[in-house]
């Protein structure tokens, strides 16, 4: 390495090969090892940080859930729906007003997590997150970092209780909302369950496991996540699409309709039958009459006239095809199963004709049908449905203002449909189909439905409507699983609840 002392002679290093070189290599290896540690730290502290630190088993989240007294939940009149009490160890757990609110308020349990509004607004109720990023930074320094918020809902405990009582032992759902603001007053789902027993650590396990095994599915919030064949109540959607798009006007009649009442309507070689309204005889019906008698043939023809693409498009404006913008997660309502080659995703004209009166692959949630009625009731303007009026925390109160979701229809068209729905309840022809929906001293508009489910067994019973028809303040949607004809079960429930609403609202 240093040249020779004499030409031709090599300098030999002392025979101690490379301890310095191997030490250097060890130094590099250790640097790489510590680089790997740095990379691992970066992975957990940056890449996975937000995921881990908000996970349910994170110490901060668990501690907050265990020790924080969740904010109270009240109804629109200030009545407590959910509040916290201390167990024998001084740790808080939840109590609930009644079983009737279980489908919407849900539960918060140390063992089984949360559901319903307790889940949707967990962060606000425990106060672990805050909308303000500065607060978010500061709260890490606080002894009690959480700022639990009290939540005032739009619900009415009175009407909610009445709805559950009216549904009785049946499985089903009732939605009532204010069409002018989108405030939901009732979001009932039966069967109900005892949320207090789930929240109470002493009874949580037994209660929860029994409910989970219950074949009647009490944990399914039917109002938002139940998917039902709509039957004739879907005719209001078809009417919105047909009249809204201009494919049909209120005076439109179909000359083949009276004949088809007997022999059936031939569509692409497939015979669509109807025979439920012998009173109208051989007269060709207009829109109001067809609605009044719930004429399948008229609506099938109107649907064909409108076309699959326009029916799907207008249904989409009402909220079909996507989860609804709502406080709770909602199931998607559909006009068709989709994937077909015909316009709008229908398989063919037969499916479209059947869908037009709600009897093909159409599936809806009760909340969606309430929004359909709400659109008609509110002059064509669809308000965004919501369940919370205000949050109140340390920093003050934040109120939730009503929001227009979208204008669906011109108010004139909405008025035409509303008029038809009034006739369906109040008119001579409609009475037979909506018995029990009428309320003395108030004009009710509505549409019943009888959703054939195929096979044996009773159909699902439907009613959607609103009141008072002149200046609608309340919308209602009722579905009773296997409740029979709409007139038999859902319409009377609607009548009872509208009566209850009238008393509650002092109208």
């Amino acid at each position, binding site marked *: 390495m240093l040249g020779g002392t004499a030409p031709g002679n090599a300098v030999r290093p002392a*025979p*101690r*090969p*490379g*301890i*310095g*070189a*191997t*030490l*250097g290599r*060890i*130094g590099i290896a*250790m*640097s790489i*090892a*510590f680089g*790997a*540690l*740095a990379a*691992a*730290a*970066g992975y*957990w*502290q*940056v890449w*996975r*940080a*937000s*995921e*881990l*630190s908000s*996970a349910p*088993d*994170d*110490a*901060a989240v*668990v*501690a907050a859930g*265990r020790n924080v007294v969740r904010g109270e939940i009240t109804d629109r009149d200030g009545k407590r729906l959910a509040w916290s009490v201390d167990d024998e160890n001084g740790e808080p757990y939840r109590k609930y007003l009644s079983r009737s609110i279980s489908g919407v308020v849900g539960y918060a349990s140390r063992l089984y997590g949360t559901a319903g509004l307790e889940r949707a607004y967990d962060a606000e109720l425990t106060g672990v997150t805050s909308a303000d990023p500065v607060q978010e930074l500061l709260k*890490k*320094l*606080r*002894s009690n970092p959480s700022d639990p918020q009290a939540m005032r809902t739009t619900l009415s405990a009175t009407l909610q209780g009445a709805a559950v009582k009216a549904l009785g032992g049946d499985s089903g759902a009732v939605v009532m909302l204010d069409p002018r603001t989108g405030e939901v007053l009732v979001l009932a789902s039966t069967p109900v369950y005892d949320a207090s027993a789930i929240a109470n650590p002493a009874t949580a396990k037994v209660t929860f496991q029994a409910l989970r095994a219950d074949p009647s599915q009490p944990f399914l919030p039917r109002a938002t996540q139940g998917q039902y064949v709509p039957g004739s109540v879907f005719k209001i959607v078809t009417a919105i699409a047909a009249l809204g798009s201009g494919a049909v006007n209120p005076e439109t009649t179909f000359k083949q309709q009276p004949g088809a009442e007997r022999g059936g309507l031939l569509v692409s070689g497939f015979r669509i039958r109807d025979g439920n309204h012998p009173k109208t005889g051989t007269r060709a019906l207009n829109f109001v009459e067809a609605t009044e008698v719930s004429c399948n043939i008229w609506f099938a023809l109107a649907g064909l006239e409108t076309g699959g693409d326009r029916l799907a498009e207008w249904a989409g404006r009402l909220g079909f095809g996507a989860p609804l913008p709502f406080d709770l997660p909602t199931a998607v309502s559909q006009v068709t199963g989709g994937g077909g080659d015909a316009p709008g995703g229908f398989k063919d004209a037969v499916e479209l004709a059947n869908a037009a009166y709600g009897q093909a692959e159409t599936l809806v949630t009760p909340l969606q049908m309430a929004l359909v009625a709400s659109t008609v009731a509110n002059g064509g303007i669809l308000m965004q449905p919501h369940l919370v009026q205000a949050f109140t925390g340390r920093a003050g109160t934040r109120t939730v203002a009503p929001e227009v979701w979208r204008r669906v229809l011109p108010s004139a068209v909405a008025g035409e449909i509303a008029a038809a729905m009034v006739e369906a309840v109040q008119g001579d022809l409609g009475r037979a189909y909506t018995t029990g929906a009428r309320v003395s001293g108030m004009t009710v508009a509505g549409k019943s439905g009888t959703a054939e489910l195929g096979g044996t067994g009773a159909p699902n019973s439907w009613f959607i409507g609103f009141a008072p028809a002149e200046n609608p303040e309340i919308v209602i949607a009722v579905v009773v699983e296997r409740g029979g004809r709409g007139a038999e079960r859902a319409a009377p429930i609607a009548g009872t609840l509208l009566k209850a609403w009238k008393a509650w609202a002092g109208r």
Partner: protein
Amino acid sequence: MTLTAEWRLRPRLRRRELALLIVASLALVAGSASLALTRRYVAGEPLTGGPGLPLANGTALAIYIGGLLTAHGILVLTGRRTDQILLPTVGLLGGISLLLMERLPQDLAGGLGLGTTQLVWLIGSIAVITAIAALVRSDAWLRLYKYTWAAFGVGLLLLTFVAGREINGQRLTLVIGPLSGQPSELLKVILVVFLAGYLSENRALLVEQSTRLGPFRLPPLPYLAPMVAMWAIALSIVVVQRDLGAALLLFAVFLILLYVTTARLSFVVLGLVAFVAGGAVLYQVAPHVRTRIDIWIDPFAASLGAGYQVVQALHAFARGGILGTGLGAGLPDVGGLPPGGIPALHTDFPFAALGEELGLIGVLAILGLYLVVIERGLRIAASAVDDFRAILAAGLSLVIGVQAFIIAAGNLKLIPLTGITLPFISYGGSSLLTNGLVVGLLIALSDRGAEPPPPPTASRGVRRLMDRGAP
């Protein structure tokens, strides 16, 4: 060599050491103040408790910094030309440990409380560093009695096997009268001393030889024999003591030193293969090994059971994020038991606690400090005057570096979690005193000699050495 000659004081300034100690002390004061303020804020106490800067247990910090400066003063007085970086670096690590132990629930240690007990051990550790760095001038007592040391180490190990007290399923602690300690901490130093003596002595002879076994070229017998012995010792530690960490540490240091000596990667590969094979067998037959490995592969599968510690450690890192929550604002003290607390936090997971409160930035700084210790030790090794001192210095610095790596990587789910301590940060006397011994030896080994040479009569040591050198 006469004592009077040795003990004539010729003070030598150590400017770099002093400057680094001042920076380290300032950092610790800032940390302590941030801890104190956070604590008062959290407790809702008045924020200006007295005149001047509020400190978290200012007395403890003052004693600690005073201890460091005293050590510095003693090293100045002895006037040796030794390393000036190691003392401030481990001093800073120890100071971080002091802040952390002040901050954790004090009832984790009985008696004086966690913070105060740790302060006592830290002062002890500094004393050991200083004493060894000031007094050890000859390495003969290590070099000449390597077999005695080895026998002592094996004896210590066997004693622990037989008489060790089992704590948390690990038979690590030896109790003799009022004293208790973990011999495996001392064992690692003894191993390095023995290996340095053994490998340096046999090196020249063996670099070119190898044993043939059929078609395979094996390491020469004098390497093979200790390799097999080490392998057996490591696996027996796993089986009997259930101490995966110590086994990993001892075996890793052994392989690295073997590589340093022979520059043959094949020996290391062979050793690794043997270790992994042994581990694979143990995975099948030893439930505690299987549990550890399974937890490592997916801790989230049993996040409330066996994987709880690891999962909560990862959550702690995640909560820390980049900047950390700040000292005193993390969640390590929620309970010590589920939910929230990490069991054995002060011994096994201080790195996770620091990750939460100091964030990624702090974690990188701490890793950097360990890397400084390693690189400095290797530098001392590279400039050592002979093989023994080179291997010794390399081994000592790697003992600290590899140990820090193993436990930090375990905390970060990079390798299976093991229960060894994070040098100079974990709570515990055995660990602090032994690591003090290691750093003291490193500083002593870095001695570049007194400037004017002593009279050449001082070479009796060398003569004795050469007489015994070749057995």
